[in-house]
């Protein structure tokens, strides 16, 4: 083993801390969306009321699914337009001390779509192509708004299980409270701790250093700590630096790495508990937590095991013998393998997409592990939307499983009707379609190219393109390898942007519609004849359902990509 067992403890302790904090924080989040009294009301309520007055809305005006969607599109459309124009014109706007030029339209489109949709996939080099203003004002605004949108949508969908009037709550109220009560306070705290750990927080964009080796070196600075905190907490994943969380400035120590992991886990692991509070059945949170922990733990385990395993390719070279330290290329030496693997797997499984290592050279099985997280996009997935997607899976799983107990299926006392199944099924189709169709078109149209010429790509390039579209459709933002193919062409910018927008807002519409149908139904009483979902059996069933359905859909492409790269493992 190429790592000290000691460092496994870090990971387990951190997981323990998250699992200890999540029930408490989740209950708080639940109360925030139930608008029950919580700490900070005296300070924040007047502020929020002022915001509602400004927006001309009121908590007493709950919306139907359609209205909620319109409000989501209105806010996010505004964000998108603002970002697009800002990036296009960043050279002419203030706060561009490094002289970054305005982005070409296709890159601006991709970037605006990427940040609006909580993806934060970047097709540019942050240090030279993004102005300080773009990062600090435009991007940072999107970091908050996109995460708040995801949380609001989840809250709205969850309300469907308790409301009976067909309404899901008020989007503007949810959005405001997501920021004032959840994202902003935790992000501020997180940023302060980051600063204490040595992460820069300054308006100085860059300093020039004269290293001992001679010459000059430009060290880019800026409001890194605050950016990093909301980027991870909001499951956005955009890095202030191109090297993302692997940069020593953004992530100076093991402590900051673990803090980053904690911030990524906090909201997705708390959401099931918020759900339990909101539907007034705390026990219902546990099957989801069990599914998430189980799948993430298996993923981390596999990732670590295959990264640490001997690389068979090196075994054939005379005199070298099998490599004993696995796949070290791209891995930060400052951290142990379990620490960095935990960060990396959590980052992909929580749809954050931040990197603590360069994953272009990881073992094929480790690639497969990461891809799988983006294929489910619900274990636990991004803030709000990940859990809502898990609820969509749950609806389908209960539909099939519920039949097996001899009743027309229901969840939390709400019947699962044809309408819910129809919409949930759309979400099932959409994700693979958004990944495979653009990929196939790119292949048929010859858009996959290196240096302008189409090439017969290797399995690795295949994996990289697959990873790119999977990451965009899942609104993840992680990228496998930036040099396997050129993804900064107009095809990948425009199509990638569209994939992110569709991969974000169509599922959101599905979640709201499904929630809306539930909200229009009466709650039925439950007894021994109804399926008790707060049980271990159900948790196991749900985990198997998610894994089997995902595997069935994605196994063929996994065979072509990562599986084809495996050479004589074992």
């Amino acid at each position, binding site marked *: 083993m190429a790592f000290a067992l000691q460092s496994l403890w870090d990971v387990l302790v951190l997981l323990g801390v998250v699992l200890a904090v999540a029930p408490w924080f989740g209950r708080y989040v639940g109360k925030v969306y139930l608008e029950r009294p919580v700490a900070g009301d005296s300070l924040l309520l007047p502020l929020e009321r002022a915001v509602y007055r400004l927006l001309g809305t009121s908590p007493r005006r709950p919306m139907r699914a359609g209205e909620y969607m319109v409000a989501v599109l209105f806010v996010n459309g505004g964000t998108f337009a603002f970002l697009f124009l800002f990036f296009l014109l960043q050279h002419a706007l203030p706060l561009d001390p490094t002289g970054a030029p305005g982005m070409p339209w296709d890159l601006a489109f991709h970037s605006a779509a990427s940040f609006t949709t909580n993806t934060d996939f970047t097709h540019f080099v942050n240090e030279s192509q993004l102005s300080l203003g773009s990062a600090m004002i435009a991007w940072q605004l999107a970091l908050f708004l996109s995460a708040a949108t995801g949380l609001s949508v989840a809250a709205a969908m969850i309300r469907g299980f308790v409301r009976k009037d067909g309404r899901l709550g008020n989007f503007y109220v949810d959005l405001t409270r997501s920021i004032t009560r959840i994202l902003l306070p935790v992000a501020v705290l997180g940023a302060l701790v980051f600063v204490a750990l040595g992460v820069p927080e300054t308006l100085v964009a860059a300093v020039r250093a004269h290293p001992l080796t001679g010459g000059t070196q430009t060290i880019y600075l800026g409001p890194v700590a605050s950016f990093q905190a909301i980027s991870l907490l909001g499951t956005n994943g955009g890095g202030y630096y191109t090297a993302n969380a692997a940069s020593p400035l953004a992530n100076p120590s093991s402590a900051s790495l673990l803090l980053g992991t904690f911030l990524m886990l906090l909201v997705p692991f708390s959401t099931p508990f918020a759900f339990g509070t909101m539907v007034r059945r705390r026990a219902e949170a546990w099957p989801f937590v069990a599914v998430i922990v189980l799948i993430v733990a298996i993923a981390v385990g596999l990732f670590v095991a295959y990264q640490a395993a001997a690389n068979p390719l090196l075994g054939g070279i005379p005199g070298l013998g099998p490599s004993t330290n696995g796949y070290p290329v791209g891995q930060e030496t400052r951290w142990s393998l379990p620490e960095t693997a935990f960060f990396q797997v959590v980052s992909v499984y929580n749809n954050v997409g931040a990197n603590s290592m360069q994953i272009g050279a990881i073992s094929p099985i480790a690639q497969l592990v990461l891809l799988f997280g983006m294929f489910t996009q619900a274990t636990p997935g991004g803030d709000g939307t990940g859990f809502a997607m898990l609820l969509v899976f749950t609806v389908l799983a209960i539909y*099939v499983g519920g039949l097996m107990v001899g009743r027309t299926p229901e969840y939390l006392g709400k019947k699962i009707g044809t309408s819910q199944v129809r919409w949930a099924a759309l979400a099932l189709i959409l994700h693979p379609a958004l990944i495979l169709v653009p*990929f196939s078109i790119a292949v048929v149209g010859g858009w996959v190219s290196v240096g302008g010429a189409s090439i017969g790509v290797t399995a690795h390039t295949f994996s990289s393109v697959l990873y790119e579209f999977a990451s965009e459709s899942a609104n993840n933002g992680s990228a496998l390898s930036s040099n396997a193919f050129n993804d900064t062409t107009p095809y990948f910018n425009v199509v990638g942007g569209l994939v992110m927008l569709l991969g974000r807002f169509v599922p959101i519409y599905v979640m709201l519609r499904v929630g809306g149908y539930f909200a229009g139904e009466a709650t039925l009483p439950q007894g021994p004849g109804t399926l008790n979902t707060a049980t271990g059996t159900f948790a196991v069933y749900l985990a198997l359902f998610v894994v089997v359905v995902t595997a*069935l859909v994605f196994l*063929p492409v996994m065979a*072509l990509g990562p599986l084809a790269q495996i050479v004589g493992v074992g």
Partner: protein
Amino acid sequence: MAAPDPVEPGARVSVRRRPHTSVRRVLVDSVKHFGLRRQMRHPLMFCVFVLFLFVSLVTLYPRAFPDIAASYQAGYYVAVAIILFLTVWFANLAEAIAEAQGRAQAESLRAIRSGIRARQVLPDGALRWVPSDVLHVGDTVEVAPGEPIPMDGDVIEGVALIDESMMTGESEAVTRESGGDKTSVLGGTRVLQGTVRVRVSAARGESFLDRLIRLVEGLGREPTPSEIALSVLLAAFTVTLFVVVLSFVYLANFSGEVTVDLATIIALFVCLMPTTIGALLPAIGISGVNRVARANVIAKSGKAVEASGDLDVLILDKTGTITVGSRLAVQFVQAPDVPASELLEAALLSSTLDETPEGRSIVRLAARRSAPSRRLEPGSYKVMPFTAERRMSGLTLADGTEVFKGALSSIEAYGAPLPAPTRSAAAEAARKGMTPLAIAVNKRVVGLVILKDVVKPGIRDRIHELSTMGIRTIMCTGDNRLTAAAIAEESGVDEFVAEAKPESKLELIQREKSAGRLVAMTGDGTNDAPALARADVGLCMNSGTSAAKEAGNMVDLDNDPTKIIEVVSIGKQLLITRGALTTFSITNDVAKYFAIIPAIFLGGGAVALPGIALLNLLGFSNPYLAVLAALVFNALIIPLLIPLALAGVPFRPRSAIDLLRRNLVSYGLGGLVSAFVGIWLCYHFLAWLVREPAFATVARLVVRHLPLGGP
């Protein structure tokens, strides 16, 4: 002129009779189902059918498809086409068998009515023989003994004893008379005694017989909401897999690792499609209704059968459902200073001529206690029948001795005071929910006979089964609270409503429904009609009035109110069968991947990829046979599961989570394991087959003599 005799005297045609299906008819139907209109109704199987046509076309004219020519292998393509054809045919077969079972039941019913003629009462009062076909709703017919009743209707004049055995299988004849609750008669039944006039209440094609025929034949069967939702899910799954498989073709060719053969990719798609459940879905629905019909219940829609699986609350009448319907004597209590023999003799005398079930039970009990029997000479006594005013009955013997039995208050009013110990014994019995009757001889109370409502044997177990399934039972009775509580205790119902008035049931249903529960009830009287109509599942007894039958959504031909429990099981079984086969279909797919994906890489002329070899769990070496094995298994599993689809998966009442666990293991894990084993067997069978010289010769001949092109 005598009425034509459509049914052999004494012939009993019961729905219950196990239908025998004609093999030839089933085969013919299964071929007919290839028709386009039929195919369009099942998009999933239609899709397989289109793929079959496409592969056939390629096989016949490979030169028209130059892209495919590179990997074209005549024998392989012919094999794929044949298996695809079989897959669709097996699906047709499943539906045809289910329909044939229904049709066999329907035909035995139709025979009842063929050629019935009836005497219509014309407006001027004259009678005229007409074929029953021309009768309309509102027409009146006269039916004499020995004649069949032409159509469903109500008796408006007269009383008759009617043999309904051909419809219900119940050999005891029933009485029908004008006025009251027993007016309704069924078309096809036969009058044994008495002449009645019947007003036709159902138009031709609308009678129960017609409904039953249509339903068991599966014609005009609307898919139920849960069937639609499942179809939507299966369709979504199919579309997803289509995208996956289609993109696989482009991506595989692009990756340069493999070239994917057309037949192979079609085989992959068909194997992954949920063809198993898709093929069996119609048969499951039809057989559910058939199973209900075999229980001698006419469901007016498949939806009602499904709803019965969902029930939360069952409202049961005490009388006739939970108890045998009459109170029976269980005990004698002597008055002080009265010898036991005197009481027994008095009891026997008072009831000898009492033909009510209560009276007969007193005689039985007295005889068992060896009461001195005494022959009553005709004319030596005078019967004092029960009247509403006197509320007691008995007789006066020739020597002037008066023997009476009756309610305590009536006996006291008659002038026989109750001694104190007797009174307290009576109060004690009443407290236990029993009914004490006093027996008096010459205005002297000699003792009590205690009557009790007797719970039907086995009802406790059935109510326990219901509560295991999560269904709450509420007993409804006109009795006082004490009696009701005692019966509730003894039968194990969850709740009871005592001193119920006719409208109580409706109130009860409304209360439960407003709490969001699904409610079922049984009933027969006209005053049950509103409640039957309001209930989610209203099971009406066939002996009930037309109004009640119209209001309910199921009619029980056996007049057995406990039948509702059987119907609940059938409804649950129907849903479980659908869920179980869907799960089976999905887990099957996992195994098929492990057969086909390695085969694609092996057959595509790719360099050996160790990563792919990892997937080759079954260790197949011939890629063509591997694909064919998966495809053959995919087709064969359909006929293998037809019996399960028709009979429903075994169902025993259990808690929901227990059912989920068991069915997941049986059908989820079972689907996975059986597919691995099945595909392995198919592969080795095919491998053996192609090595057989005889088979090779035949195959060569076929390929040579078919107009096949290709390299």
